[in-house]
């Protein structure tokens, strides 16, 4: 599945479930790809690919961060399940971003061998949740800052779709911490 293929969330989910393992033929990718993104100039594709790769790097780091949280032993059962669900979303984002970069002729960045997280400061479930909430809040801002930059409106729309998911993560994590889940009418 390609990022460019997202016509609506239901379709994206169906595609993801149907294509678990992401074994997509080149023909399928071509069929699913958004026309405007593929029709862009090579300079525009290069810029869009760069934006997508930055997003991919952040998504891969988020997957690693949730893994650290899961393995910390600090998360209790209902919260642990939630964290794993959110990690799954980040994995889906990363898979789609990587596929889209390839569709555009770019090379997706790979996950780092090692990430540095402030594990020494994680002493309780609340610490882990606050750390995750910070990452999710940053992700909302990062996608918000990427949406207007794409040459392709398909990609802007898809980035906004991910932004919505990250915003829900942030709100749920804030709620779990006892903070106002939706502290303002606008995000920045």
């Amino acid at each position, binding site marked *: 599945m390609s990022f460019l293929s997202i016509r609506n969330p239901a379709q994206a989910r169906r595609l993801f479930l149907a294509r678990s393992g992401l074994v997509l033929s080149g023909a399928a990718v071509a069929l699913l790809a958004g026309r405007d993104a593929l029709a862009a100039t090579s300079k525009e594709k290069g810029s869009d690919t*760069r*934006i997508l*790769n*930055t*997003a991919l*790097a*952040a998504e891969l*780091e*988020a997957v690693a961060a949730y893994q650290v949280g899961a393995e910390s032993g600090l998360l209790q059962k209902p919260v642990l399940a939630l964290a794993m669900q959110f990690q799954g979303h980040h994995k889906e984002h990363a898979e789609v971003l990587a596929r889209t970069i390839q569709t555009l002729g770019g090379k997706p960045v790979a996950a780092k061998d090692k*990430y*540095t*997280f*402030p594990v020494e400061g994680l002493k309780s479930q609340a610490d882990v949740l606050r750390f995750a909430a*910070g*990452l999710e*809040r*940053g*992700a909302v*801002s*990062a996608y*918000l*800052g*990427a*949406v*207007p*930059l794409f040459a392709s409106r398909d990609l802007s729309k898809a980035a906004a779709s991910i932004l919505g998911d990250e915003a829900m993560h942030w709100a749920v994590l804030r709620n779990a911490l006892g903070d106002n889940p939706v502290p303002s*009418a*606008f995000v*920045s």
Partner: protein
Amino acid sequence: MLRAAALVLLLPAGAAAAADAKNGEEVYGRCLACHALNSDRVGPRHCGLVGRRAGAIPGFDYSAAMKRSRLTWNEKTLDRFLADPMKTVPGTTMTYAGVPDAKERADLIAYLKKQAC
């Protein structure tokens, strides 16, 4: 409510009052998907940023554009970069539209100035 948002959008760039590092910490929350103060992540660490030459943290995989930018981070260069990263350093991997509000940029820079390594 929409009127309040519209007013924010219409604030002139020169409307900045005295920089507020505390508010800058809040603005810094926007950076946390990619940055941390004390460790390199998708983006480089931010402690000790002011006064540092761009692209100078050993071992961090900067874009070629950032390495050849010849920028040194100070209030002026940070303000310009944060307003529009991709225009200031074409080719940067900080693919972010920027912080359009001059007061928020000033607050953010005031916060960053306090972050020594």
